[in-house]
């Protein structure tokens, strides 16, 4: 009997592992496909544009590196697209040449990065330099992975970074991102998720372009969208819409401008149930679809996402990340004229959107912290490298320069004289990054919690029923809040466990 049981057990394990093996293999390759279905639609297209960009390595000859790190042996582990990889590779080559250090450069895709880094952590064998986003600074510091950079990076370098991105990488052991405490990363980039409009559609409808100085109110926005929504080929079905934004990326722009928020001030409680500002904003977002009909329906959206429809010229307003500019300026990808504008404003009267960033961190266990810090300074702030990435030498802008002087000076001039192709009103981007009385870019609340599970709970609760009008925003918030709270509690428990 026992032997038979053992046989069955072994047979099960072997069959399961056999099947598991098949699954595992495909799972990795799945990630690329997932990206197509998931809402990172935007980056995907940029990737293909990025692949076409050729980097002139000769342009990166004036690299200024000082110091002798001939005994240093560094490992760099990041995710990058081909053109970024080329930029960082040439910076590494120069660094090795100038300092005598040896650098091993390992690059992966953004999809696989998290898992691979986890493997490094589990093996307790961290690379000297790796990417950390603002949302992961606290957990990484708590777990003892990050080296404070205060003693290794010049104040001048830090002062020339965008203020809010510098703050995002500071952590005082309690709350990340407030600007207090040590600096743990230098930014790879600083992005914002601005709003764009298709000028051709406006021209055809005879509607005046949006004025970046005076963001629309929600009512005005609906009115304009209604003028842009129409059946262009006369077959009785609407085929052009005012706007079409995936909730997971765009909802923030409505919630925050209305004074709403997901969590309480110390990020311990989910507070959406019964919160007027939040519910009003969420309902307005849904009404664009189910009441005003100025976006594709939920069904139409599952058939073809907003990003593809925008590229196809079916959409009046669409989100535009700083990384999208290269793609939107490429006539093969987007054969329309376009400009940047503000997201419409709610109760606060300030147009808001999410900012984003990823940063270079140095491992706390690195044997060569000085060399590693020198190399990330080069990555983050080398002028020639920034010229390539922001599009001055390639003609395809994928990020705003990290160096403030250059961004506000040469970079803007090159946009003005046409060297860097860009949509109209680049100031919109700068406004969101720097913040003005009418514009504010912010890091969303997931940045300050241990993980994003509470937000995922919001997304997996069936919000589509609100968008198609089967449920109100208020009902949904009441229904989904307990699951979100549970996830947030678990995250805070993990944070507490890590801190101990």
């Amino acid at each position, binding site marked *: 009997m026992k032997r038979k049981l053992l046989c069955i057990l072994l047979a099960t394990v072997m069959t399961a592992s056999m099947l598991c093996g098949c699954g595992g293999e495909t799972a990795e390759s799945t990630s690329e*496909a997932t990206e197509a*279905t998931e809402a990172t639609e935007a980056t995907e297209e940029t990737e293909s544009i990025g692949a076409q960009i050729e980097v002139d390595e000769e342009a990166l000859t004036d690299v200024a590196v000082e110091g002798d790190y001939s005994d240093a042996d560094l490992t760099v582990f990041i995710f990058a697209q081909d053109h970024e990889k080329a930029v960082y590779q040439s910076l590494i080559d120069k660094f090795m040449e100038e300092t005598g250090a040896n650098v091993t450069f390992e690059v992966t895709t953004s999809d696989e990065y998290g898992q691979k880094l986890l493997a490094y952590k589990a093996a307790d064998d961290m690379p000297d330099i790796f990417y950390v986003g603002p949302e992961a600074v606290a957990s990484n510091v708590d777990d003892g992975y990050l080296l404070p950079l205060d003693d290794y990076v010049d104040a001048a370098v830090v002062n020339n970074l965008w203020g809010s991105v510098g703050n995002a990488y500071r952590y005082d052991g309690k709350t990340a991102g407030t600007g207090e405490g040590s600096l743990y990363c230098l930014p790879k980039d600083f992005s914002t998720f601005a709003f764009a409009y298709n000028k051709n559609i406006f021209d055809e409808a005879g509607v005046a372009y949006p004025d970046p100085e005076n963001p629309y109110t929600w009512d005005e926005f609906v009115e304009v969208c209604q003028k842009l929504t129409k059946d262009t080929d006369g077959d009785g079905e609407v085929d052009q819409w005012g706007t079409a934004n995936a909730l997971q990326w765009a909802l923030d722009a409505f919630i925050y401008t209305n004074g709403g928020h997901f969590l309480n001030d110390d990020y311990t409680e989910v507070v959406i149930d019964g919160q007027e500002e939040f519910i009003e904003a969420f309902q307005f977002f849904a009404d664009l679809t189910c009441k005003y009909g100025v976006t594709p329906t939920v069904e139409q959206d*599952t*058939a073809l996402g907003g990003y593809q429809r925008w590229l196809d010229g079916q959409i009046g307003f669409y989100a535009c990340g700083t990384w999208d500019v290269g793609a939107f300026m490429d006539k093969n990808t987007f054969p329309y004229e376009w400009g940047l504008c503000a997201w419409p404003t709610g109760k606060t009267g300030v147009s808001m959107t999410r900012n984003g960033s990823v940063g270079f961190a140095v491992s706390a266990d690195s044997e060569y912290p000085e060399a590693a810090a020198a190399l990330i300074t080069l990555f983050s702030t080398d002028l020639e490298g920034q010229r390539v990435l922001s599009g001055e030498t390639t003609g395809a802008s994928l990020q705003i320069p990290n160096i403030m002087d250059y961004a506000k000076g040469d970079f803007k001039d090159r946009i003005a004289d046409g060297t860097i192709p860009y949509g109209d009103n680049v100031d919109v981007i700068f406004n969101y990054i720097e913040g003005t009385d009418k514009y504010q870019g912010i890091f969303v609340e997931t940045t300050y919690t241990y993980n994003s599970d509470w937000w995922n709970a919001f997304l997996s609760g069936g919000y589509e029923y609100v968008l198609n009008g089967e449920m109100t925003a208020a009902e949904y918030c009441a229904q989904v809040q307990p699951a979100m709270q549970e996830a947030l509690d678990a995250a805070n428990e993990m944070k507490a466990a890590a801190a101990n």
Partner: protein
Amino acid sequence: MGRVKSKKKVKLSAMSKREEKWALLFVAAPTLGFLLFMAWPIVFAFLTSLTTWNGAKGFEGMLNRFCGFDNYIKLLTDKKFWQTLTTTVIYLIGIPIGMILGLLFAMGMNRKIPGVRVLRTMYYVPVISSLVAVSILWAWVYNYDYGLLNVIIKALTGKHGPNWLGDENLIKVSMIIFMVWKGLGTSIILYLAGLQNIPRSYYEAAMVDGANGWQRFKNITLPLLSPVTFYILITSMIGGFQVFVEVQVMTTNGGIGYSAATIVYYLYEKAFESFQLGYASAIAIILAIIIFVITFINFKMQDKWVKTIE
């Protein structure tokens, strides 16, 4: 039991001894592989399931986060766990459907009809195709506006077809149809081999006795195919509990209201998106136990219905 055990040891010649040593060496390779790549990971997963480990600080970091059976207790009240487990079980409906269809097709293809080889190959193509590729393909088949299915429905009825992947119930039906399609080739090939192994003389004898087609099928074909049925049942159930790729590729966030998410999908999310490796390992252990119990029951029950030619 009544056997007399011989305690007398047979003395081996020097050559036999040497051979025995070699034999041990040959056995050592798979044993070592098993211990290293199966037994240890299982033990490791179990240990991890007793912690709140997030992957940090290696093995030591894991041991520092010991939490007893907390993860298992939490699982009992975890709605998503039960929801995904239920969905996974619902998907298993595809197994009997696939087996019946597989048998029907196999019997059809067991005849000498022109082009049967081409047909057999065609039905096997999905099996050898990349799961990711065919999942993407089927996501398009199910597409609300442009999908093949809805285009056909519109042509036939004049009405727009349903939102296959955007409805909590239909998405499950869609996934089951896809999985049946994907697995059909395997059942067909196995049943075909099983059918060809049944001696013709059985059928001839039955015909002499006056048995009609249905009686021959019921009393000869079906019982003698039972080992194949058993094999397909066991492997598909184990595979069925581990469905992941289809959900990952064909749905966004596990489908509307998490309606398409399977237990492995949930496990993956916990482990590699929330980095709750301890919790995810607890799910894995529970899943392994479920699979083991079901397989065990299947093996126990086989005496009742699995027949062999001998």
